[in-house]
Structures are given as C-alpha cells and as structure tokens.
C-alpha cells in the first residue's frame, strides 16, 4: 500500500475538467452536462467461487476521456495487482454467446415432409447497451492507495464519515448527484471503501486504445452483491444493467428480488426477423411491467462447454482466464498450436472429450430505478444446472406449388398459424395486433383469406 503525499496534484488538475454527473450501475460516471452523455446500459461480469470474486465493469463512455470518472464502492482494500484492465472483445463475445436468439425453420414441401433447422445468431443485439492529502486528512478522508493501471488513474478511498468524503469529492471536481451523501455514508458504515477511477491521458495515448477498456478487480469477500444504489440517486428514469456471472456449480439468482425467466420458445411471425432488436426491447419492457418493474430477468443459463443453437461459440479457456475465471487453466499458455479464438459460430456445439470447463454462465438483465429497486442486488449461486436460453422461432411457410391433399390442408392451416403467431407477438410485446397483421414483408402467406368455416374441412372428400 502506498500512502499519498499531500497535496495530490493530479486530482486538482482533474477537478478543472470534471463537471456533471451521470448515473450508472454501481457508481456514477461523471461527465459534462452539455455533452448529453448518458450510459443507457451497463455490463458487469461477476466471476465467483467461494468468496473469491472477480468483477469486470464495462462502460460505454464515448465522450472526451478527460470527462470520465467512476466511483464504485468495494468491500475490501485493493492492492495494485488486484486491479486489471480487461479486453472488451471478450465481453462482446460473452454478450454474443449469451444473447437471446432467433431460430428459423423452413417448412418442407408438405407433400414430402422433412424438417431442418438453421440457427440465426443475434450477435450483440443490444449493442447500444454495453455499455489532496492534508485537506483529505482534515476531512477524514484517507487516500489508501493510488495506482495507474492501463489508461486509468485509480484511488482507493476510505473515510470516517460521508460528509467529509462528499466534500472531498466535490472539492476535487466530482459533482455528486444530490442525495449521494447518505448513500456514501451507508456504504462507509458497512465497511466499504471507494474505488475511484479516471483516465490518465498520457497512458491512454501510449496504450493506443480509442475506447476505454473494462476495469477489473479481484477480491475476496462474503458479499456476493452488486452496489446499484449510487446509480439510482439522481436517476433520470430506469437504467439497464446486464450481469453475467461465471460460476462453478450452477445458475445464479438474486435473493432479495424475484429472478424471472423471460418467455422463450415461442413461434413468432416471420416478419419479426427484420425487427428482432425492436421486438426484444419491447418484449423486455412488457415483461418487466407485468412484474411491476420489480424483477430481475434470466436471459441465459448454460454450461459454458456448449450451446444449441449457438449465437456465438463458447468462450475459450484463454478468454475465460481474461475474465478472471481463476479455476480454469489456459491450455494455450506456453503450448504452441492452434489457439482457440472467436470464429464464426457453429450452428450447435456439444462438449467434446476433455473439454469440460466447469463453468456455468448466467445472464441477468435488470431494469432498475430507486423506487422499485431500493436496495443493492444480492446474489446466490444455486445448484441448478438446467439450461435456459431466450430463443424465438420463425417458421417460414412452404411456397412451392406442389399439389396433393396434404398441401391443401397445409395451406388451409396457414392463416390460422399466422394469426396465432401474430397474437403471440402482440401478447409478448404489447404491440397492436392490427399493426402486426399488417406486416407481410418476407413471408407473404399463401393468400391470407377469410377464415374458412370449421365444417369446410370436416369431410374433405366432399
């Protein structure tokens, strides 16, 4: 641990640049008000086994890096080696692997029926959703350590009481949202410290990275939780958060909020293909409303060894190590040979011999605000290894002109099928059914005619 001499100049320099505050998941990003930068969504990866935890925080901050700052409560002091700068590509891969997916089936000639399947990855469909010493002492604030990690300057702060910390942060240019003081105080009394990060421009220039990379911290704590309260202090509406957990035993769920599986496996109108992202957002919103905006949604729960259908290939051991999955060995380390990487996904992938990775991935999606999520998210690992995925099915009708009795029955059944698919979609999303019925692009049904009276097909021979 390195104690900081006073006064600590870089902070004063930053203070000239940091201005207004934008809320985000466990901390808040600080940015100028006029830049209108807002983190619509955050992504967090939690790797946990026993008390050992590796937390990766992704920010989708796109503005001037001098305007970026992050304040996150952490349960323990962190040594320099416990902090790391991650690789965004791995998180993008994890996002793609766990993303809700569309599956397409093509109806065969009804006169010669065989089914086959094509997986359509929905890769990254929520792409927009990633994501001074003496004075300090007099305020009761201790700068426990200061590190430069990658492009970030990082401080670990502790404080005797929140007012001092609030003053110190304000004096150093962090314009806190109104009402942040009591929340800071609550974390301090719970024995937590604050992890404060901002961008070191020199280091960023040296690193050659345009975008800010994810910050990772490794620590040991009984607290299997995610602090979200700072992010809701000045919330301008609900925020989106994706939590990916990588564990050994099974699925992860929240213990103080309901974890609900998203509806899955439905047949939807073929026209949904062109608006899958739109559909998914609408469906999520509708389901959240039905749970009174108080639930956490399960989007994916799967053994990391395989997938079916695959939206992206499972993560390689090397990628898992990068995310902090400390119990997985990287077989490519020091061993020449074809290393696993991100390749085009196979339609489906089964575990091969010797591939067992002992990693279970859970993807949770939360839309939260202070009224509906008053307390931080608390998690537990369950023994449930049941696979779950958000999977939506498109069935393309057969458009051939074959004539046979089965084909007549098939064609007669299509309008009913389309109507049912439209109703399913309307029910899931809350969209107007008439609008859905109006979409015909891509799947022009064989004349969507007046519904036939039920007795027309009663004695088909006539």
């Amino acid at each position: 641990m390195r104690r900081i001499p006073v006064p600590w100049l870089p902070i004063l320099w930053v203070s000239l640049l940091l201005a207004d505050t934008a809320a985000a998941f466990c901390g808040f990003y600080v940015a100028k008000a006029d830049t209108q930068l807002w983190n619509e969504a955050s992504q967090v990866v939690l790797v946990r086994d026993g008390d050992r935890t590796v937390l990766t925080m992704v920010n989708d901050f796109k503005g001037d890096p001098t305007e970026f700052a992050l304040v996150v409560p952490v349960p323990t002091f962190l040594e320099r080696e416990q902090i790391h700068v991650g690789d965004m590509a791995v998180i993008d891969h994890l996002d793609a692997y766990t993303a809700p997916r569309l599956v397409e089936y093509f109806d065969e000639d009804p006169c010669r029926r065989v089914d086959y399947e094509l997986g359509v990855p929905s890769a990254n469909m929520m792409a927009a959703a990633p994501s001074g010493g003496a004075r300090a002492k007099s305020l009761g604030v201790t700068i426990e350590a200061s590190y430069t990690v990658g492009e970030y300057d990082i401080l670990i702060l502790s404080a005797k009481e929140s007012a001092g910390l609030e003053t110190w942060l304000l004096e150093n240019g962090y314009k806190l949202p109104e009402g942040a003081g009591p929340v800071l105080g609550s974390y301090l009394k719970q024995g937590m410290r604050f992890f404060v990060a901002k961008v070191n421009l020199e280091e960023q220039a040296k690193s050659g990275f345009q975008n800010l990379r994810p910050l990772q911290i490794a620590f040991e704590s009984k607290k299997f939780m995610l602090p979200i309260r700072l992010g809701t202090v000045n919330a301008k509406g609900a925020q989106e958060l994706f939590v990916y957990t990588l564990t050994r035993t099974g699925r992860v769920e929240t213990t103080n909020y309901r974890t609900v599986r998203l509806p899955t496996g439905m047949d939807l109108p073929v026209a949904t293909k062109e608006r899958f992202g739109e559909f998914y957002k609408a469906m999520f919103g509708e389901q959240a409303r039905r749970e009174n905006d108080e639930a956490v949604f399960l989007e994916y729960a799967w053994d990391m060894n395989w997938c079916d259908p695959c939206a992206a290939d499972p993560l390689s051991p090397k990628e898992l190590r990068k995310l902090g999955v400390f119990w997985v060995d990287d077989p490519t380390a020091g061993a020449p040979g074809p290393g696993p990487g991100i390749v085009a996904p196979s339609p489906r992938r089964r575990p091969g011999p010797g591939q067992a990775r002992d990693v279970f991935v859970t993807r949770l999606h939360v839309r939260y605000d202070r009224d509906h999520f008053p307390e931080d998210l608390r998690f537990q690992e369950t023994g449930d290894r049941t696979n779950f995925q958000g999977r939506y099915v498109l069935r393309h009708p057969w458009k051939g002109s074959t004539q046979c009795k089965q084909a007549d029955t098939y064609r007669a059944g299509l309008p009913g099928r389309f109507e049912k698919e439209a109703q399913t979609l309307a029910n899931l999303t809350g969209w107007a059914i008439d609008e859905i019925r109006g979409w015909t692009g891509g799947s022009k049904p064989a004349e969507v005619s007046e519904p036939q009276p039920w007795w027309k097909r009663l004695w088909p021979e006539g």
Partner: protein
Amino acid sequence: MDLRIFQLLALGSLVTWGVLGLDLEIVPLHGLAIVTSAVATEALGRRWRGEPFDASSPIVTALSLTMLLRVAHPGLAAGAAVLAIGSKFLLRAGGGHFFNPANFGIVVLLLASEGAWVSAGQWGHAVLLGLAMAGAGQFVIHRAARSDVTWAFLLTWAGLLFGRALWLGDPWAIPWHQLQNGALLIFAFFMISDPRTTPRARPARVAFALVVAGLGFALVYGAYLPNGMLYALFAAAPLVPLLDRWLPGPVFHWAPTKEVADHAPHPGPLAAHSVGLAAPR
C-alpha cells in the same frame, strides 16, 4: 377435528399460488418425491414406536419443504424429506422432538450438498398480505397457540432491520423491502411457529424467538449468508428442551382436546377467510 387440516389448507393454497401465480419452479417430480418419502418415513417411524399413523403431520412438513427447498435431483428432495421426518423419531429429548422437521431437513441438505438451495427472493414482495393473513388465520384457529413466537420473531427482526437502516442512514424503503422477503415470512408463519418444537412456556418462547431473530439477523446481514434464519433456528433448537426443563408449561397436542375446543373461536369461517386470501389470483 384435527386442527392441522387448516394448516394443510393454508400451506396447500400457498403452494398452489406459488406455482400458478408466481411460476415458482416447483418441479412436480420433486414435490412427489418429498411427499411420498415423508409419508413413508412417518409410517415407518410410527410403526417402530408402536404409535398410530397419521398422514397430516408428514404432509405439513412435506409442503413446507416444497415451498422453501429447491434441489437439483429428485433424490435430494426425497433425502430432505427422510431427514426431516427421521429427525422427529431419532433426535428426541424431554419426551418429544425438538428440531422443526422441515428446518432440519433443509439445513442439513444445504450444508451437505451443493445441489440444494432456498430461493428466498422468488416469492417476490407482494406476498406480505397473503402470507400474513394465511398465517394469522391459522393462529386464530389454533387459539393463538404459538403466535407469540411469530410476532416476537418478526418484531425483533423488523426492529433490527429498521435500527440498522437508522444507523446506516438508509431510507425506510430498504428495511421495508427486506422485511417483505417471502422466505422470511414463510419461515415466521409456518416454521418457527411449530407448536411441537417451540418452548412450552410463553416467556421461554419469546426468549427463543429473540435468540433466533438475533442470530439469524447476524448471519444474513453480518455474515452475508442468505437464509440465515433457517440456520439460526437449527442452531437454537437444542435450547428448547433446556428451556422446557427450566420453565415448564403445558404440552401442545394437535388433536383437539377439550381445552382447545373450548377456546377455538369459530374455526369454520376464519379458515375459509385465510384460505381465500391465499388462493391463486
């Protein structure tokens, strides 16, 4: 008439509501394994002790297990039921069992297997009223036999939650949210209130509730152990025979004695009331 029929109805309604209204992941096969193993173990135990068999007791235990315990395999579900009912016959002191059977089954399984867990959050936060009414309805029927334990536990727990919030400077929404945890309320109304495994004298019961609440709270909010109250009850159960020796009181019997019948205030309509509120919406 055995008063447990009302307990069965209340628990049955809650399970039904959980499955239909809340989509709780209660696997039918696991439920079946729990009920059959519990009833079979009870039958064996009764035979061993030369006592008449009655299915209502093991079914009450089985329903409590079904509501709280989640397992990865049906074998674990059956194991929990065997442990729960088995503890009634094997772990006895002062002429009775002292572990709440369902609590014993759940805690032993949680400690022994990674494939068992309690989904505390799955009941959501709209359950307070339904549960309170179902539980309160039961108490009236039982002529408030053991409601003192529940209220002492809940008041202590609530006091600790609000006290903690006051100390932390948190808004009241936080302790209020924490108090509405489904598993906590099921525990308070259907587990710690078990008349057979709580002390016989009222002062002893209140003291017992305070110990369980204090220890459970420390486990949940100090040690970050979800479901700390279950462990606290397990750890405090051996105190029951000691407290009974120190502060003797009347032994509770489920079968209606004259005393119970005399004090039971109109069980019919009240039972219907509690069940109606807990029924699926």
